[in-house]
């Protein structure tokens, strides 16, 4: 890895980014992308001036465009690099970059070996006009492989800005991979802000009975055992699934000034989900140590 004082195109580009938060898990499907999306939305919402970027380095399974309701948006090139896609219209406080924006058809598969992935990630960090950001949230694919190694390699010059959030679900098979992810952060000296236990318990909408559809409590236990901050548990929330699945109709709000004065549709709909108030507590726990730092 490069020494931390060295200037690189990446460090130059990220000079005005205050904090970089990497969301990772080891296990697939535990909610990295949905946590990244919620984290970006909530950090943006936590102050009227916060500017947040979200970078999706899941190159073979990008979910962020869909979750932000930006599916099918093109990326424009400017003299100063790629312009990220803005999710909140005129306000321009939430921007996003993903390989999903670069695909011609929605069913196109991206079949790349490591070196090509590495090149793409470097470009995402060095060639995108991120501008001034309070937070850059990075959504990662499952595992601890090419994407992760490349990401950390390219971010080495800005290592002091980095931290990670680990997401897990409560089952043993997920915790096992979360442990691997934690080992990864330790091996790479990546400070961990804490752990989120996702999909912990489900309230039956008919009778109110709580079922632990994917078990419960495992994440909190792991956090305690490993000396990690436990950021909180999030229940299974069907409204959230639907929101992130079909977050469409926002394309229109990007165009109209009218819409943007009314606010940011996705954010407003998100705040109505049962998860939003729980997540804002998590964001507080994340922001406090970061604010103290800067």
């Amino acid at each position, binding site marked *: 890895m490069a020494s931390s004082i060295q200037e690189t195109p990446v460090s130059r580009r990220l000079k005005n980014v205050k904090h970089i938060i990497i969301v990772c898990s080891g296990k697939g499907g535990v909610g990295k992308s949905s946590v990244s999306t919620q984290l970006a939305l909530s950090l943006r919402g936590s102050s009227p001036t916060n500017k947040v970027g979200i970078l999706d380095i899941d190159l073979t*399974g990008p979910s962020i465009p869909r979750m932000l309701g930006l599916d099918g948006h093109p990326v424009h090139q400017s003299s100063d690099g790629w312009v990220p896609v803005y999710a909140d219209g005129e306000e321009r406080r939430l921007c996003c970059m993903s390989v999903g924006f670069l695909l011609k058809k929605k069913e196109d598969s991206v079949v790349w070996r490591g070196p090509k992935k590495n090149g793409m990630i470097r470009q995402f960090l060095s060639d995108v006009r991120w501008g001034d950001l309070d937070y850059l949230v990075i959504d990662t694919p499952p595992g601890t492989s090419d994407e992760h190694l490349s990401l950390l390699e390219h971010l080495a010059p800005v290592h002091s800005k980095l931290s990670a959030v680990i997401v897990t679900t409560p089952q043993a098979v997920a915790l096992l991979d979360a442990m691997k992810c934690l080992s990864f952060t330790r091996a790479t000296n990546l400070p961990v802000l804490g752990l989120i236990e996702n999909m912990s318990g489900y309230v039956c909408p008919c009778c109110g009975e709580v079922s632990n559809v994917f078990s419960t409590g495992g994440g909190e236990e792991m956090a305690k055992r490993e000396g990690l901050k436990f950021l909180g548990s999030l229940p299974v929330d069907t409204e959230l699934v639907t929101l992130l*699945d079909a977050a469409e109709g926002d394309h229109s709000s990007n165009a109209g000034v009218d819409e943007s004065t009314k606010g940011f549709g996705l954010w407003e709909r998100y705040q109505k989900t049962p998860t939003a108030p729980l997540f804002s507590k998590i964001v507080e726990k994340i922001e406090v140590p970061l604010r103290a730092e800067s």
Partner: protein
Amino acid sequence: MIAVQQASAPPDPLSVPTNAPEHCPGTESDLAGKADACAGCPNQEVCASGKAKGPDPALPFVTERMASVKRKILILSGKGGVGKSTFTAQLGWAFAADDDLQTGIMDVDICGPSIPTIFGIASEQVHSSSSGWSPVYVQDNLGVMSVGFMLPSSKDAVMWRGPKKNGLISQFLKDVDWGTLDYLLVDTPPGTSDEHLSIVSYLKESGIDGAVVITTPQEVALQDVRREIDFCRKVGIKVIGLVENMSGFVCPNCKNETQIFKPSTGGGRRLAEDMGVEFLGAVPLDPRIGKSADYGISFLDEYPDSPATTAYLDIIEKIKYQLGD
């Protein structure tokens, strides 16, 4: 006896990765060993000599080993956490219920191997003998191979780049003493990455009988599954069919069914129609499936009367039918 190419000890997955440099043109490229990037690469000599060019030297060994494997089936999904490993295990258990069938399970999810846990054999180790590495046997007719058996501790992260994963997969195919198998089931990681490319290229010559693609009902999963089916088409793998997992949850208290992962765009059934693949069936979300996986016991044996078991067995029948078995 089958010759083992470099009958070596299982590699230590924690050793420093042998990275080809970022701009490696690929060992099969005309530039192999000669590109600017090759300067300083440990493989430069081999690459420049052209020995690495053309088919992978492991290929004939793989083909020889695979000659005694009747059916090779991949379990795939672009999306993570949809239940690939769980489904692979059910398929394995169901096949192995027939005493006359020999089944092997190969876990090529190198960074997140779940198969050892799901079969309750996570503490096992791989042993090597003159005929290769022995799979770990769940029962006489069900052998398993996974990187999980090679790690000093389950906590260890396998921080490998593509070439190293590729190397291990080739070893799983050529150095594992699978014996004579009726079915080899390959559990894959999510996505369309090195693991997938490797398994497909190594098995090209031996022939892959097909892939079972798993999804969950919501669009965020389906969009990745579309890409996976596109991948199968690109590399010429037959899609046996699509399984929708976690589709609907019956509350144990009020018995009402709710959709946790709502099929906002028509779910697996619609996707199968749109993409012209067989819809094999839907498995409900049942917390006992997750629990069985965590405890390493067979859900099918433990809960033979559950709707999920019926769904699994029905799907497995359809898979056999599709294969002509």
